[in-house]
């Protein structure tokens, strides 16, 4: 079975532009979370979606938005890019709703803003 997939793998954008990152969860998983990982740090929570509804949001500006589609895939959008948005963007999917709620990560999208 395929794991979590993300596209594109790498992306270079200019300050002020906008970007869309895509994620497909593990088959059967209904929840997708997005994280930002800056070099040398642990991932920071951005959003979580479950069955197309936003279930959680981290401390990120309104320039960051996301949505989940009926097939449970998800998009993360970032507007008015800043140099500080350069990071590895990770998507995680989960299929369990019990207390364990294990998350499985994709390979990430490396975004560079110049």
């Amino acid at each position, binding site marked *: 079975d395929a794991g979590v997939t993300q596209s594109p793998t790498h992306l270079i954008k200019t300050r002020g532009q906008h970007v869309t990152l895509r994620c497909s969860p593990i088959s059967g998983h209904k929840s997708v979370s997005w994280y930002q990982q800056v070099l040398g740090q*642990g991932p920071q929570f951005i959003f979580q979606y479950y069955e197309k509804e936003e279930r959680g949001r981290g401390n990120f500006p309104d320039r960051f938005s996301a949505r989940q589609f009926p097939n449970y895939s998800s998009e993360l959008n970032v507007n008015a890019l800043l140099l500080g948005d350069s990071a590895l963007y990770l998507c995680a999917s989960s299929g369990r709703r019990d207390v364990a709620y294990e998350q499985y990560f994709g390979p990430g999208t490396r975004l560079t803003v110049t």
Partner: protein
Amino acid sequence: TQLLEQSPQFLSIQEGENLTVYCNSSSVFSSLQWYRQEPGEGPVLLVTVVTGGEVKKLKRLTFQFGDARKDSSLHITAAQPGDTGLYLCAGRLSGTYKYIFGTGTRLKVLA
């Protein structure tokens, strides 16, 4: 602000040595996960602990969840060069589906 402090940040040891990585917080977690991450890749789930005081073993790796579910440790016995990588702990905040991650421990095992 919820924080998850991980220590040490860096560790360089010889093959065959033992080591322990710690993850501490003032927050209570419903569950806690340990991941290993290679450069430029996504974190790979190693284990999930749920019950206070729980101990799980995965070959040479032993994971423990604190009794109060605020801290955890990862112990590696007889480390090998293949254990080299970034180890991350992530705690799921009680009553939420939100995870907070530690800053990571970068381990290097020298042959």
